[in-house]
């Protein structure tokens, strides 16, 4: 299987308020189709790692490869493009643009990418909403739907450009067990049916156990 994401000797320090070594020599690989979860105690550096992997945080030491290409030290604009095309990010808090409709929220990253016509993008977006069972909400304002629905819209948005990898920072942390289960099943299906790679930070042990692989962190290090 080809490697989608690889981290080599990632180290990160917070300099304020005191010098603090958050991430210590992180090394791992994610292959195509892997459904991986990251677990670890609160404060061990999971979110910090995810921000680096998603290219939003560039203040680190080490090397990061996406589809076997080094992306460390790429320019900000190049990284924006990479995030747009290759990485889908799902937050713990379902970040949507509240003034736009559900459909517009999902379409936005594809419009930014600009590779397809408006009709194609709209069609794709409706299809993603359909996969997540929320196509009936397409025309609603993003501020007028429930939390679980928002989370699924955010997942649809992460999927719109058919990225190489989806990253999630506790995407089910705010959901009841029913909705949490639902999101898991969606992820599972995407990885099995479409060969999508997923890297999900979670505190939910049941969730983690059902993934292909669990990365456990402690004090900024990967211990298993």
């Amino acid at each position, binding site marked *: 299987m080809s490697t989608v994401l690889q981290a080599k000797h990632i180290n990160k320090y917070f300099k304020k308020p005191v010098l603090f070594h958050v991430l210590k020599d992180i090394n791992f690989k994610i292959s195509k189709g892997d459904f991986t979860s990251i677990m670890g105690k609160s404060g061990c550096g999971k979110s910090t790692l995810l921000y680096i992997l998603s290219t939003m945080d560039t203040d680190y030491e080490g090397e990061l490869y996406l589809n076997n290409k080094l992306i460390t030290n790429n320019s900000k604009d190049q990284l924006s493009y990479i995030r747009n095309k290759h990485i889908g*990010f799902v937050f713990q808090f379902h*970040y949507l643009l509240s003034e736009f409709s559900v459909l517009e929220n999902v379409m936005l990253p594809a419009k930014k990418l600009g590779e397809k016509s408006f009709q194609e993008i709209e069609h794709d977006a409706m299809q993603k909403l359909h996969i997540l069972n929320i196509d009936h909400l397409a025309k609603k304002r993003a501020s007028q739907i429930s939390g679980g629905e928002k989370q699924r819209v955010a997942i649809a948005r992460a999927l719109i450009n058919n990225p190489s990898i989806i990253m999630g920072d506790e995407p089910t942390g705010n959901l009841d067990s029913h909705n949490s289960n639902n999101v898991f099943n969606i992820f599972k299906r995407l990885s099995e049916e479409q060969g999508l790679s997923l890297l999900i930070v979670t505190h939910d042990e049941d969730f983690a156990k059902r993934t292909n692989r669990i990365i456990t962190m402690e004090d900024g290090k990967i211990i298993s």
Partner: protein
Amino acid sequence: MTNWSVILNIAKTHLLTKVKQTIIAALGVTFGIGAYITLVSFMTGLNSMLDDLILNQTPHIHIYNEIEPSKKQPVAMYDAFKNSVNVVHSIKPKLSQKKIHNALPIIHYLNNDEDVKGAIPQIKANIFYIAGSIEIGGNLTGINPLDEAKLFNFSDYVVKGSPEMLQKTDNGILLGAGVAKKMSLTIGDRVQISTSKGDVFPLKIVGIYQSGVADIDAIQSFANIKTVQRILGEAENYITDINVKLHNMNLALPKAKKIEQQFHLTAIDINTANAQFETGTTIRNLITYAVSITLLIVAGFGIYNILNMLIYEKMNDIAILKATGFSGKDVQYIFMSQAIIIGLIGGILGLLIGLIFTNIINTIPFKTDALPTVETYPINFDGWFYVIGITFAMVSTFLAGYLPSKKAKKIDPVKIIRGQ
């Protein structure tokens, strides 16, 4: 790579969900630009009206013979004292020097010059108006009424009667409005004129002259050149002043210099004679621009504030946009385009308001004795003001939008996402 339709769509949505703030910000610009257009159109209208007033009736070059002592005193011509130092006390000017020698050939020469639109003679005479037992001092100027009307808009200042009437009437006079009022005279009456030598002539009033300056109107009257020559008992070549109008006013100074040298006469150009006039124009322009720029700066701060607030409210949106692949520049453009849309809408509305206001002002009656030809407030409808106005609006909103949008560009999405 910038995808403008997406950026403008987001900008539009932001503006439409904050309609109230958008309108207030745009109104600030509208107010500034509207005031600028109104002020500048009115002020420059006023300027050019006053300029016209002076320029139309003032000769570009005024040629006359300054009464001054002879440079060469008679003693210098006496050979016996050639090698001595002569001291002459109490030099008096020669009396006969008011007359311009060879005036007619000079006028002929000037009229053949291709820079000259026209050169016409005048005779200035001090006279007294006699009414019963009282005598009022005054000036009688001999003119060619039709030429004066053609070159110096003389007809604008003849409030009753006409220059043509004067031309036709031998022994006719255009009496100053102030004189006429003092002596209770009107068209058709006769007025007696006495020269400084004491000769008395009756003249028929064929019109009333009003310059708008009370001091002038109280003494000044006009008659035909021939009439004045006869009153003074002078020959037909007796001319005291020559007024010249050029095709290009800017040539007045060099031309005047040249005439002085060539004919040994005094020649005053219009700019030297009316230097204070330029100052008034400059100051009015200064006030106009100072007020307009102040208004626009205030409007600019309004936009700056509103965008700053908007960016503060939209922190989350900015973080999402950046996380999903919008670059810092894209985000900056989103907010810049909001500022520019506000500027454009506000600016265009401002131009419209300015246009409406100036049209209204242009119909307000404005009657004053000083300006007999003016009926309503003067407005200068110059397209350039509208170009400058909209440019003003765009530049000020651009500057007001630049700083906040720069801040939005720099927002670190990780900080925002962590902060939640």
